[in-house]
């Protein structure tokens, strides 16, 4: 037993457990106050968002500024579910939960259907999946909700509140992450065909659109409880350390396993050379959609966690300029290094939102987006491979296909 634990996986599990217990004890004993508790949770959330970005940009080579858009979708999505629930309204739970599964079901149908035709254009594909999504949620709202709403209310109501609350929170997190996944999937179909530079611009626009929509949730969209630009209040504060730790570990393990699988190879191969990847038989579209959707799901999940810690959401926190945060972190930690992202993500929040906020004058706020880019610039000049380069913890290290190596050749950009 002990011997079996002595491999990287064993160390990883033991280390994780140790961290979990230490933090839990420090929190329970009140040694870490609410401020630092918030910092740890925030660090975990930002790190999840950034791991997602690393998957999309670092490992797959698709430059994205969309992470905060998906972070926002996850946050508002999950918050709406729990908000409605604590206001005796099961609609969020029912619609999100069944809408998600219905969408997945319809996607499977659509993909089987599309495979029967030759030469489907991107726009056809996009339209088909979009219609499937709309249909799924229409059914969830119009057909399932009237029936299942009361049932859900009774069923969950019969449970002790502590239990039903955890179930609702679970569905809310799943829903937020799932919505982010769905939106990224639909958005990614046409946009990932564009190539990395245009993809960057498209995802930037996406983040801006989401922000504008959030500013107008009460006027343009039928979500008065989100209160538009005034900010959403009254979100239950349900995020606890076990939830933070659990979701965080889930993200790390899922991402690690994805990268170590044969899909992981395709993800990396596409980054290295899309054309060459296609020529060895890789489905390039899929190898770009998959990490994009996964990375967005990570961001959405982080959003749900963050929303239920802050208990308050404001569109301003999802401003596009914020979406440079994960970008800076991922470059700092090293593109294509999970370990680097994890360490840098926590250190970033710990230093900038923790220590500096305590000890620096409040005017620092105004200057941060002058300071960060400068630091980033310095970083690019002095250590372009990131603080941790390609170092990975043994558990996260892959043996099969290593990460980007320095190549001394100048002619890798020849065009076929």
């Amino acid at each position: 037993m002990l011997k079996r634990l002595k491999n990287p996986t064993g160390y990883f599990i033991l280390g994780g457990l140790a961290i979990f217990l230490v933090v839990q004890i420090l929190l329970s004993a009140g040694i870490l106050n609410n401020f630092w508790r918030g910092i740890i949770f925030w660090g975990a959330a930002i790190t999840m968002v950034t791991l997602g970005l690393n998957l999309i940009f670092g490992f797959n080579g698709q430059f994205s500024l969309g992470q905060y858009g998906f972070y926002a979708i996850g946050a508002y999505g999950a918050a709406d579910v729990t908000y409605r629930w604590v206001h005796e309204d099961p609609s969020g739970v029912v619609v999100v939960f069944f809408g998600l599964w219905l969408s997945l079901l319809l996607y499977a149908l659509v993909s089987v259907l599309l495979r029967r035709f030759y030469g489907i254009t991107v726009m056809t594909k996009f339209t088909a999946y979009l219609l499937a999504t709309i249909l799924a949620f229409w059914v969830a709202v119009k057909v399932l909700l009237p029936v299942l709403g009361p049932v859900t209310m009774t069923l969950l109501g019969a449970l002790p509140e502590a239990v039903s609350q955890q179930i609702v929170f679970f569905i809310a997190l799943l829903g937020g992450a799932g919505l982010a996944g769905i939106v990224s999937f639909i958005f990614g179909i046409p946009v990932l065909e564009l190539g990395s530079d245009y993809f960057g611009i498209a995802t930037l626009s996406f983040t801006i659109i989401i922000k504008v929509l959030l500013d107008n949730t009460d006027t343009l969209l039928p979500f008065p409880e989100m209160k538009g630009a005034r900010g959403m209040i009254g979100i239950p504060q349900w995020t606890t350390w076990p939830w933070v730790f659990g979701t965080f570990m889930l993200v790390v393990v899922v991402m690690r396993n994805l990268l170590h699988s044969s899909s992981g190879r395709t993800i990396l191969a596409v980054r290295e050379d899309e054309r060459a990847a296609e020529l060895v038989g890789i489905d390039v579209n899929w190898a770009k959609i998959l990490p994009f959707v996964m990375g967005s799901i990570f961001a959405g999940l982080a959003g749900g966690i963050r929303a239920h810690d802050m208990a308050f959401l404001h569109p301003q926190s999802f401003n596009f300029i914020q979406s440079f945060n994960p970008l800076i972190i991922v470059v700092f930690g090293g593109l294509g290094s999970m370990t680097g992202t994890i360490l840098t993500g926590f250190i970033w929040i710990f230093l900038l939102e923790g220590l500096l906020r305590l000890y620096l004058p409040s005017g620092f706020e105004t200057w941060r987006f002058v300071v960060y880019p400068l630091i980033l610039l310095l970083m690019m000049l002095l250590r372009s491979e990131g603080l941790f380069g390609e170092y990975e913890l043994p558990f996260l290290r892959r043996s099969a296909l290593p990460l980007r190596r320095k190549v001394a050749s100048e002619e890798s950009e020849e065009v076929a």
Partner: protein
Amino acid sequence: MSILEIKDLYVSYGAIRALHGISFHVEEGEIVTLIGANGAGKSTTLRTISGLLRPDRGEILYDGEEITRLGGDAIVRRRLIQVPEGRRIFAPLTVLENLEMGAFTRDDKREVQASMEWVFELFPRLKERLEQAGGTLSGGEQQMLAVARALMAKPRVLLMDEPSMGLAPILVEEIFEVIEEINEQGVTILLVEQNAQMALSVAHRGYVLETGSIQLEGLSAELARNPQVREAYLGGG
């Protein structure tokens, strides 16, 4: 039935039409060469067959099946493999990893190992450089790696786009010997070449492509004797 049959293929890049209705066929076990000047549309033809480009019109039949609108990955899975022009190897990956990527669509581990052995026999040089990053190989070695990687997919038909490009004469000889060797092992080859002399010396039949249309076709020996071909592609005389 031909293993590869191209029927009346039209291909454009935006508004520019690169192929104006070409038709040709390749029989199983043959080496067929497509020769033509720069910009004639040779690479375009190969890219369309391997699913990287979509034709405006026309049909591509592979072993009787229409593959005209299949994606590149689906075509690779049918063992119709392209060696791209200009050494499109994975520069940051080692030689070994490049070869492994070549076998991406196969899950028969043993046979992959056998292909690997075969590839090392054909290109002993690669075996000496297994751990070297592909991008740091010399141009000739990269060309070999590109061919070797394609062979790792266990092709039935190999589409080769200018395998001799940029190679020293002695390496050109070597690569053409390898092409014949591969063909003797049962792989059908469609070979695109600027080096018409060499191409015609290994191929069974050939087609001459000029600005997107096929101008001439015939047995290699006939083409090599044809005054037009000699004038345009074999340096006169």
